């Protein structure tokens, strides 16, 4: 069991714009293994929501089944959560989002939950461009069921069991990009500095945002032969660049404006300022990103950071032309055509 929070809190903890302290974004005590990467990601989610000053109750936490899918219990206890069934978080989240477009949906899943049993739902979720943040806590193994192979394990990687994987891995970022997702990122549970802004950007993005986070399973897949171990990822991580997220209301004050290669405005006015090396990846071009991913794979690198950004896409509600009022707030008056309309209809059926 690992402990996400210390029991002692300073009375003067800093507060965000809503007057909430970080504690207001925390959850129950984690029951994951001590050192599990998933707990760090939970912490990053807490930080991101705190820093963005989101109302906790306007967030919905969605998940499937797995160690990773348990984590929503360990953050944001003032948010409603839904721990559904294995691999089916996408459809439940889709329904939830259809029912209330005004919440922020943070879906958490595992690599087994997404890339195996959930693959079909995942692909179609991306295709519909549902407005949500989808975080894969990717440890390349089945944690909760004790160490079976996962479809994201790299060729040649082996878990504690010791049998190297021989099947082609599913690269969820590549898939999401080729299915038109406008916000695709990869990160590492151990790299909070990179992860927190990525989560914040994903929340602000209108449409489907994927963050595939390599998150070592200390119990079953943290051996040196595993490409999802702490050691391996630290040694092979390569970042696309960094970025700032500048909320609509705030002045742009960047330390080194020369480094800003591009500034992209999101749906709600928030800006993303990208900082990257000259000649590095153009993350707005999906073709070049796909090539870069393929290349990194061949070089045994884990390309992290924001991999692809395209703010110009219609989310599901846009496509469906749904009304602005969340559907769950419509009342009888809005919904029921009434007896006269029915009688007219009867008449047409005679």
């Amino acid at each position, binding site marked *: 069991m690992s402990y996400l929070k210390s029991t002692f809190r300073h009375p003067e903890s800093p507060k965000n714009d809503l007057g909430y302290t970080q504690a207001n974004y925390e959850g129950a005590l984690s029951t994951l293994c001590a050192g599990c990467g998933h707990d760090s990601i939970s912490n990053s989610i807490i930080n991101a929501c705190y820093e963005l000053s989101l*109302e*906790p*109750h*306007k967030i*919905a936490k969605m998940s499937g089944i797995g160690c990773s899918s348990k984590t*929503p*219990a360990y953050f944001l*206890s*003032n*948010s*409603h*959560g*839904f*721990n*559904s*069934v294995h691999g*089916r978080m*996408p*459809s*439940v*989240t*889709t*329904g*939830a*989002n*259809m*029912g*209330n477009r*005004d*919440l922020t949906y943070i879906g958490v899943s595992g690599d087994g939950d997404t890339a195996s049993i959930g693959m*079909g*739902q995942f*692909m*179609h979720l991306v295709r*519909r461009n549902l407005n949500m943040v989808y975080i894969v806590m990717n440890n390349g193994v089945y944690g909760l069921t004790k160490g079976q192979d996962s479809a994201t394990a790299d060729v040649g990687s082996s878990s504690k069991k010791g049998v190297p994987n021989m099947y082609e891995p599913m690269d969820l970022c590549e898939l999401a990009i080729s299915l038109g997702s406008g916000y695709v990122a990869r990160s590492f549970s151990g790299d909070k500095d990179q992860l927190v802004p990525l989560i914040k950007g994903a929340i602000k993005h209108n449409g489907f945002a994927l963050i595939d986070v390599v998150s070592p399973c200390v119990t079953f897949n943290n051996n040196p032969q595993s490409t999802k171990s702490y050691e391996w990822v630290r040694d092979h991580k390569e970042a696309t660049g960094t970025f700032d997220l500048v909320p609509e209301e705030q002045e742009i004050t960047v330390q080194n404006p020369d480094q800003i290669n591009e500034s992209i405005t999101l749906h709600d006015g928030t800006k993303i300022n990208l900082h990257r090396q000259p000649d590095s990846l153009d993350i707005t071009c999906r073709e070049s990103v796909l090539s870069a991913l393929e290349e990194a794979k061949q070089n045994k690198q884990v390309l992290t950071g924001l991999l692809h950004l395209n703010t110009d896409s219609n989310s*599901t*509600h846009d496509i*469906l*032309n*749904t*009304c*602005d*009022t*969340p*559907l*769950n707030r*419509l009342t*009888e008056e*809005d*919904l*029921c*055509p*009434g*007896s006269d309309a*029915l*009688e007219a*209809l*009867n008449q047409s*059926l*005679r």
Partner: protein
Amino acid sequence: MPTVNHPRIEAVNDFVIRFANVNGTGSASANNMFSKAVFRMGVPVSPKNIFPSNIQGLPTWFEVRVTEKGYLGSRGDVDFVVAINGQTLKQDYETLMPGGYFLYDSTKALPRDFKRDDIFEIGIPLTQMCIDNYTNPRQRQLFKNIIYVGALAYLFNMEFEVLTGMVKDQFAKKEKLIAPNIGALELGYNYAKEHFTEVCGLRVERRDNVGDSIMIDGNSATGLGAVYGGATFAGWYPITPSTSVVEAFEKYANKFRKDEQGKNKFAILQAEDELSAMGMAIGGNWNGARSFTATSGPGLSLMSEFLGLAYFAEIPIVLIDVQRSGPSTGMPTRTQQSDVISAAYASHGDTKQVLLIPCDPAECFEMTSAAFDVADRLQTPVIVLSDLDLGMNDHVSRPLKWDDDRKYDRGKVLTAEDLDNMQERWGRYKDVDGDGIGYRTYPGTHPTKGSYFTRGSSHDDYAAYTEDSSVYEANMERLVKKWETAKDVAPRPQIKYRDKDSKVAAIFFGTSAQASYEALDGLQEEGTKINTCRIKSFPFHPDIGKFIEEHDTIFVIEQNRDAQMRTLLINEFNTGTEKLRSILNIDGMPIRARRIKRKIERMLAGENVSPFTTVNSSAQEVEA
């Protein structure tokens, strides 16, 4: 015309005509026109479309029962055949009742081996007439159908203006099609008049027997019921025969549910499969937006895991299951009532699901809209069990009604205010009212109160994960209590006593009802009074138990092989194994009144007969 050694069938407003066509040739709309014309003459009618699982080129039949008395179930036997399909000509010829009429395309003579001398052959050179009158091949195909409808109008002595009126209605927006269609009707009418005066003993005469009834298919009524019931979201996956439920929902929602900016006050997503469709419905309802899905057998099986989640996490859902012939892919375009057990006990572990079972379009409408109330009230899945016969065929039905004073029952939902006013600690699954149902909150209700964690794993009153045996057990028993509550919430059975002292009864449900009532009417005329109970929902109301107690012999009439409803009855009431006797129909056709009647007669006479109605006997005689 050869001499016929059999008296002709004579009837006014009481006969069965069967059209044998090829699918994809436009016959359905012509046949519908005929059936609707009968209806507009004030005579109840019951059309059944018997179509293949294929798009074009295979045999399809359309059976129309003209029924002055308003028996809307299937009767059995055919009095008149319109045989347009060469592939099935022989079969159609053979199945006609002695004394019946065989209308065929006489452009080619009937083959040599067609030599029944007990039927009346009516040859009309349809193909030749089309060649003579039309040049365009598509027209030649389409008008062939209209011509025979015209001929029928003469043969049955129908009001020709009713048919021309229908043509005018149908082509109101494509006016230039009106004249040629009426022309085709006249061609047929005149040909029949010229060649077949006084040949046909069947008549359609104007009556005033349909009152304010309408004609509508069950799926349309269901879709409309979802609109009226306040459904705002449908996630679905296409499958015959449920597809038209969501299509109807879409049609009516588009009609009735646009806001001022022309935006939709509803959302529909075609899911990638049925698992996803059910997941979507769960998500929407979790958020408090009335959401539903529709499917048929294979989809129901695929939804099984999710139905268990909804049962255990207590999420309201409406699922429309339009049953077809199973198992597996079975006969996808044939009817059956064979998902009863899979629906009632859907999912692993100890689960029980609420069923509502409509028997006609008006009930499809009412029960679907009610289903959302029942689901919200009980916080559990509600499955509306329809079937292909009900869903895809037009039925004469009482008109749809809506009480504008009726308010949706959203069940136990706490508002922010409620939460602020609470004294006690709130628990999502706490049974404070003793009915087994807790209070829920929609996500986003209150900044600091009312959040909880929904899960399919074992949980305590406060929705927290638990592996504590007694907490788990108490929760499971609360669900049993809720099941008891459901008995009062779901629609009551329709119990009718023909004779308070009679010890013989019948129990049926859904589309088995119409044919059953007719069969029992027939028996009553012969002096056998059988009381009836039409089941409308599961769990069963205690009245059904009482009804079973009161009788010694109870026929349970259903359209499946394994007597599935009977199984539920004996399970739930713990009684009746000896006296509940099955009458079953599994051939994929709507159950037929004449067969039910004959079966009951034989069973009451003490014959030892198989519960099935056809096999082993169908060969010997032209059975009802």
